[in-house]
């Protein structure tokens, strides 16, 4: 029914992506298991770090970006691990793959859902960070939000892809972090540096646009690679 024009292909691809994203979000908002665990974990990390560093010191200013992204990436792992794993129950993954939805839509739908969930946890954590460490970053809020969004998309793309890759392995919980964190190093380096600069009041400038380019390049390259290879990973 209907012609297979490029337009209609993209239309149905988008519809499928949004359907999958909506399903994942609906599931998660109903139980809130991963959201709660993730947020609780990030608060714990922030508390523990307050014992390691004097929150009012100069030291904090230089490590704020690093600290935040450590919190984001560790707390994010809890959400990302569940991404494809939640489909294993009742054999839902098979039903999704055998449906007409392309594997790329399956992947992007889950990535979008993960992105939303991660952003929620991160923005909440950012608030907690501001309170615990008396950090003022209102001036650069827009830029900070942009960096967080870009960095989070990087974590999401890699995390979702490897969630799919490890879904059927017996050591899934161990393999996911082992594979994902080394790959995230360039994105995290960039995000950490940019965030530290922004939180200390330095806007985007000659010095750190390189990192902005690294981050966007990372996101772009891996988004494409993921959509290209998801078929191989899920089906064969």
């Amino acid at each position, binding site marked *: 029914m209907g012609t*297979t024009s490029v337009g209609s292909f993209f239309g149905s691809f988008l519809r499928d992506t949004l*359907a999958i994203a909506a*399903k994942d979000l609906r*599931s998660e908002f109903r139980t809130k298991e991963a959201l709660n665990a993730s947020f609780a974990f990030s608060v714990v990390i922030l508390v523990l770090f307050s014992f390691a560093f004097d929150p009012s010191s100069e030291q904090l200013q230089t490590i704020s970006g690093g600290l935040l992204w450590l919190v984001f990436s560790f707390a994010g792992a809890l959400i990302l691990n569940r991404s494809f794993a939640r489909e294993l129950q*009742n*054999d839902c993954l098979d039903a*999704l793959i055998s449906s007409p939805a392309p594997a790329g839509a399956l992947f992007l739908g889950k990535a979008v859902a993960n992105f939303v969930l991660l952003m929620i946890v991160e923005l909440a954590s950012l608030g907690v960070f501001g309170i615990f460490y008396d950090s003022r970053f209102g001036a650069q809020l827009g830029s900070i939000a942009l960096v967080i969004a870009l960095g989070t998309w990087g974590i999401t793309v890699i995390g979702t892809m490897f969630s799919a890759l490890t879904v059927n392995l017996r050591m899934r919980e161990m393999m996911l972090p082992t594979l994902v964190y080394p790959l995230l190093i360039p994105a995290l380096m960039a995000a950490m540096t940019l965030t530290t600069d922004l939180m200390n009041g330095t806007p985007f400038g000659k010095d750190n646009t390189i990192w902005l380019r690294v981050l966007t390049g990372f996101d772009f390259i891996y988004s494409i690679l993921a959509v290209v290879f998801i078929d191989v990973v899920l089906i064969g």
Partner: protein
Amino acid sequence: MPGDERALEIDRVSKYYGHFPALRDIQLKIAAGSTLALLGRNGAGKTTLLRILAGLSKPSEGTVRVGGADVRDEKTRRRIGVLGHGISLYDELSAAENLTIFAQLYGYADPRKRAAEWLERVGLERVRDGLVREFSRGMRQRLAVARAFLHDPEILLFDEPFTALDDRAIAVLQGLLSGAHSAGRTIIMSTHQLREALLLATHVALIQRGQLAYTGERTPEMLEDPGYLYRTYGDN
């Protein structure tokens, strides 16, 4: 020939795990409207073949086509319905939400309406907003069947459909299958329950060590003596 565009053609399909041939040179044409009972011992290759037909796995060699189009094509997948071991439903979503998602993925313009139709057909419209997690076993199975038949597939794939069903559920399933057969659907089911399957089947295929040991029409002799095939063509 009429009906040919709905025939399933398995053309020299092989599947290797390393060098081990799980399926070897399977050549089979399943005519439209027939009901094929796929027989064979555990490990013979039935599930492997069914997964390839369902588009869940790629053959190492050979192709599977429906009316000339590859089985992994989006159009073809729309015409295939799959019911495996798991019910392929999300526990934390309601019956209506579950069916709506799959109606969306199968391209219905009004997925909610389609979902509602099928909820009525399987008698679950009163619990449409109940979470699947709270359903009884029988209700879950009925919903699973609704999901599989939702998009009016011309080709139905069942992996051991009679396993772990009580007598009442078996009767219901048999009714559905013979109804589908009368409506001209093509049905392929792998099974151990010889008698129930042979009753419905028009054709049988016996897989042994990854190869097609026998294929042909289901004869009355087979019905009288279900073990006949295994003794004649198997290697017991």
